[in-house]
């Protein structure tokens, strides 16, 4: 049953790694604004090339 020492050590280390990640993310300011990222991730990335071509077409039509 002395394997329990190893198990404890591993589980605590994994937990500590996650905790460190939490502290780093707070320090970096990721928790300063919790609302905007939720909106931002719903924006669609438009394919830049096609977008530009489409727009130049629209512009031509307008003229």
């Amino acid at each position: 049953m002395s394997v329990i020492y190893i198990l404890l050590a591993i589980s605590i280390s994994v937990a500590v790694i996650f905790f460190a990640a939490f502290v780093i993310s707070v320090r970096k300011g990721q928790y300063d604004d919790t609302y905007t990222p939720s909106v931002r991730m719903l924006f669609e990335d438009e394919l830049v090339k096609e977008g530009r071509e489409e727009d130049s077409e629209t512009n031509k039509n307008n003229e």
Partner: protein
Amino acid sequence: MADGSCYHCGDRCGRGGTQFDGKDFCCNGCRTVYEIFTSHGLSNFYELEAKAGSVPLEVERKYDFLDNSDIVERLLEFDGEGIQIIGLSIPSIHCSSCIWVLENLNRLHPSIRSSQVDFPKKTLRVTYGSDGFSLKELVILLARIGYAPDISLKEFDKKEGRVDRSLIQRLGVAGFAFGNVMMLSFPEYLEAEEFWLDQYKWAFRWLIFALSLPVLLYSAQVFFVSAYKGLRSKVLNMDVPIALGILALFLRSTVDIVFDFGSGYFDSLTGLVFFLLLGKFFQQQTYAFLSFERDYKSYFPIAVTRLTREGKEEQVQVYQVEPGDRILIRNREIIPMDCMLISGDAQIDYSFVTGESDAVQKHSGDKLFAGGKQLGGVMEVVALKSVSQSHLTQLWGNSVFSKDKASSFQTLTDGIGKRFTLAVLTIALGSSLYWLFHSPATAVHVFTSVLIIACPCAIALAAPFTLGNMLRIFGRHGLYLKNATVLERMAKVDTAIFDKTGTLTGSGKDAISYEGMELTQQETDLLKTTLRGSNHPLSRSLYDLLEANEIQVLDDFQEHTGMGVEGRMDQHTIKAGSASYVGREGGAASSLTEVYVSANENLKGRFVFKNPYREGLGDLFDSLGKDMELGILSGDNDGERKQLEQLLPEGTRMLFNQRPEDKLEYIKELQDKRQVLMVGDGLNDAGALAQSDVGIAVSEDINVFSPACDGILDASKLSLLPKFVHLSRKSIQLIKISFVLSLCYNVIGLSFAVTGRLEPVIAAILMPLSSISIVLFATMATRLLGRGILGAKT
């Protein structure tokens, strides 16, 4: 002419509407923004949210002060290697389309590298190349698409402040420790007499100890510091029993594991700290986009245009203006210091300072005071005093602004805390004394058990969660309070004082009434057609008011500025304007705005523009008057006394022509015997708002205007005020019920402690149970209360 709603901003397209690209727009501004967006590939803006645009403001020379490099340097966050970073406050951010277009700003100009929006704070951070592109150009670009940044003296003076993230970090540490300690404590809960448990329990116990140490030293620091401060000023606040409990827990548990008396109560310790910090975190909610601390600096410009000796214009910081400097002040700019008018058309709106909303015409040689807004064109003035010595800023130097209302108010929780501590100590001493005679060993055991289990956490959680929830509910219904103590103070008020102009009266469409001979339909048609050609604000209001069948074509139209308009068609003439213009002799000078009308040179009557009172005032005063005394303090003249007397209960005191200092003094006097709630709107009320127990500012556009106060109320929700006060009183009752609930838990726990049978597992069950149930109760009860009194709101 287009009719319908604007594709860009959603406003009604009345006069001035245009069409473009098959869509309607209410004005050229909106149309221009649409063109800018579509030509740069940003038409997704309209797909995310329809009609989400803001009307762009006319930029003109408003941002000239950004030519001054000193000013720019102070505003920038970063400047170097050809790159500049600026943080801008943009009040008109209000939806996802705004976020989208502002984060795609790089499509509007190649020099813009990236931009990020912070929606709750309504700020934008832009990184751009400084070669060939300047801050001023960026700001003008933003203003042109409807997102004008708000750059005022306040941002200019702001010192670099580090964001305080400590509460989240402490909460994280406590939560991490709590979860792991609970898990590691499990073996010893089960109490199975297993051999291996005996062998390995040391590992578990010391691990638990190691995890609890940071909780004690870091997370719980908040409570120790607060308890110490309280004791030093001889106040027994709520943090004293909490600190006591935490200390007792830690010491007792350490002793237990060192001498193998038991497994210790570390699980309760970490759980206690975690829940308490959660309560603090919940209560810390602020409305980041609203500032409750605004003073005159938020409205003053950073720089003014000064004329040098040679007559050239230069931009100087407003603080550098000295007496004797010649300054140019333009349309819609605020006068930053006391000065004397030299030349120019000066029509000054002093509503910031006195509350009088009518513009005052000033002449060369007249003295002008700081805080007035110029409504005429450009005027030249000579400064008489520097900004800091002007009258308005002196008002802000009053000591009432440095007083902290929260610290001198004893909250309900602190009141209970005092009695709680004394009761717990008494029980602890009493029961341990009892055991000393019967079994000395258990005496110490019992003493610490009582301190541990007498859980102040339920009491300490009741107020934050109840009040925190209530703050949110208030916010959803239009009243934004500064913090939870304002709610508690609100429950105690027994007097309500109102300012008149801007608070009780709205600044929206004036109520127009007609007196005189009725106009025939034909005359009305002709009048409306005539008014159409005039851009005067009174003409436009009248135009919207009149019902006409047809718009006709006039044979002749004339507008005489300052006097009136005249229209002729088919031998019928109609004239609308001032009394003298229309031919009325010797009209008595009236304090009301009037437009006289004559048809075919016969005086028919006049339209009277009255300052309308907001809707629901009668009911508002009725409900408030039931259990509170009311009063009116106004900077205006007493022309409206009769009208107010009709709305208010009998015998209400009304004082007019009050200067800001008078209002402050009056409130001070009242406070000798009463708790005062003051409702005002302008900077001129700021002193009174700060002096009163609860000061609420009424605002038509909460982003734009909010002086120093305890709460901001959306103008359209003024009639809900009695309900808000009623709710705040109910919240206090709710907290008291929660206290009773927690008392039950304490009684159960104490019965275990006093008899010496407090096992760690019992403590570990009772504490989270009581905390969670109180939190749930507070949350659900406030939600039900809010829904019942204010109604549901999405």
